[in-house]
């Protein structure tokens, strides 16, 4: 590894942190899936099973105070910044211990104290919003950056293009991260996109570098992300990153994902699983099996415990139906 790459590579301490995050995201995602099947989670859930490498790698490269903006597929990014698993699962179950006390639900996880500035369910809407947060940092001379995650399909909506041009023209400390999981909902991204790499191949239209990485390798994600984050933080302006990845489950819980060609899922799950890849890497680097096994079992315990607490928690209080529409805490629109 050359000096430049070494400067942005994770230390072993960071690698252990990344591994722990990967396992937390995997176990929590799996638990959300199970709770849905038990009919304890209503509505919809968009899981990131198989895509955890991007969330874990990026979060490890962020600093406290940096801001995360994510989509309805936002559980992994929200958790990766340190948001409580118990509160996230409570939110999915509509319980009083939920992160938003049931007012937001699966698609709107937000934890401002952890820098998670929201999960947005209108495709593309949060890219301009992330620009605005970055503009505030620029205006106030603050050192935080804004990191905005979205899917491949999102590159085809107008707000994506408006935000990129805007961020470049204003030279904002924002980093756009495209998680290319090959599908926009049920349609292969290639069927509806003019270029092969939906984000990377468009970077040149905004005078940005073409940056494409392996989303299944959390270290590669970390290195690419860290480089872009450092650049944004030091006044170098925005970057657009694209990571190749794959979701192991359907688009949402309603989707059996029958549209996938035979063997595709098996390939990704068997040989491109970001958790397995990372675990093997750490073992190869000499980390003890017992250390990893401890993280595995400890995380499993925390997630199980969080789910049980959620199940035991009361449903959210109906007292809050009319609160927090306006800053006075209520919803009055007339006198």
């Amino acid at each position, binding site marked *: 590894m050359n000096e430049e790459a070494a400067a942005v590579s994770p230390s072993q301490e960071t690698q252990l942190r990344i591994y722990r995050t990967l396992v937390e995201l995997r176990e929590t995602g799996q638990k959300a899936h199970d709770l849905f099947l038990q009919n304890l989670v209503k509505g919809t859930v968009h899981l990131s099973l198989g895509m955890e490498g991007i969330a874990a790698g990026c979060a490890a490269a962020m600093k406290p105070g940096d801001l995360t903006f994510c989509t309805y597929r936002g559980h992994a990014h929200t958790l990766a910044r340190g948001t409580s698993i118990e509160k996230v699962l409570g939110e999915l179950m509509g319980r009083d211990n939920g*992160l938003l006390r049931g*007012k937001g639900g699966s698609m709107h996880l937000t934890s401002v104290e952890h820098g998670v500035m929201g999960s947005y369910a*209108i495709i593309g809407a949060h890219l*301009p919003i*992330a620009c605005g947060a*970055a503009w*505030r940092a620029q205006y106030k001379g603050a050192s935080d950056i804004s990191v905005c995650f979205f899917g491949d399909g999102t590159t085809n909506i107008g707000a994506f293009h408006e935000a990129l041009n805007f961020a470049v023209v204003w030279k904002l400390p924002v980093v756009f991260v495209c998680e290319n999981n090959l599908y926009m909902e049920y349609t292969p991204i290639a069927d509806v996109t003019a270029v092969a790499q939906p984000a990377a191949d468009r970077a040149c239209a905004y005078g940005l570098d073409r940056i494409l990485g392996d989303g299944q390798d959390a270290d590669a994600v970390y290195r690419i992300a860290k480089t872009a984050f450092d650049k944004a933080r030091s006044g170098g302006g925005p970057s657009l990153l694209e990571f190749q990845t794959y979701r192991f489950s359907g688009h949402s819980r309603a989707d059996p994902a029958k549209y996938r060609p035979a063997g595709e899922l098996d390939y990704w799950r068997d040989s491109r699983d970001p958790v397995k890849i990372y675990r093997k890497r750490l073992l190869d680097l000499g980390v003890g099996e017992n250390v990893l096994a401890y993280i595995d079992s400890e995380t499993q315990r925390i997630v199980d415990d969080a789910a049980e607490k959620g199940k035991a928690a009361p449903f959210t209080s109906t007292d809050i139906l009319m609160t927090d529409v*306006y800053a006075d805490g209520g919803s009055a629109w007339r006198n």
Partner: protein
Amino acid sequence: MAELTYRDAVARGLAQEMSRDSDVVLIGEDIAKAGGVFKATVGLYDQFGPLRVRDTPISEQALLGAAMGAAMTGLKPVAEIMFSDFLAVCFDYFANEIPKSRYMTNGQVKVPLVVRTGNGGGSRFGAQHSQSVENWCMMIPGLKVVAPSTPYDVIGLMAAAIRDPDPVIFFEHKSLYATKGEVPDGEIVDQLGVAKVVRPGKDATILALALMVPRAIAAADRLQAEYGINCEVIDVRSLLPLDTKTMLSSISRTSRLFTVEENPRLCGWGAELVSIAVEECFYDLDGPPVRITTPHIPLPSAAVLEDLAIPSVERIVETVRKSMAA
């Protein structure tokens, strides 16, 4: 005391707030060096500099989205959407993003911003640059919506809007930009959610907004002079929050209600007020509430057509007279 145009009042209101709070920043298309297409931000770039008065690309989504992101994280942006018709291309931001965030996040996210926009007809611009779209905003929980009719109110409501912790859509009427009014010296700060009785009367209540206010006043003067009908005119000013107290107490007193609305007929603000009045002071009414509105059509460009479409002084006089005589 000085005489000021409505257009200059916008700049003065903004300058007043920018002087007291460095978190107040302006963005929009052509608002900086050019001073805005309606010249409502003239002088602000020179006074406050390029970091606080900033031009954007023609990207209404990026513009409103950025205003939201900045507001969520500590600035108090005032974003200009040049013509209110263009709100349609960034509808998501004021329909789904800006107003819902506080609620959806259980109060974690706050969006204190102001969106200023040139609203309304009378300028012969045709259907895509002339509509009154305040009802697009009034129907959305989480927003506040104001539409001043005088230079004095422009300054005071601008200050109130900027100081308000909630998102406010601020409708400036294009056909009022050149009108003048007396404005006292010194700081002016008004209150959102307060309607104003601008002409007291006892026979009927006329509710009006923005450009319709001076027309309603002129109509009331003629109704008095020519027919002896003494109308009370109320400038609604704020659609959200809505000062139903002031309006209902007037309606109960006069026993008649007329609304004068520039918006196309269906779902105009007057429909909501009529429904409230009917529910809450039905037995005080001596006749049916009557809405005087633009017909349910896109606005035409030609002067003779546009003038026919938007409620005129004559139409208000005739409608009130006939209805009161019936």
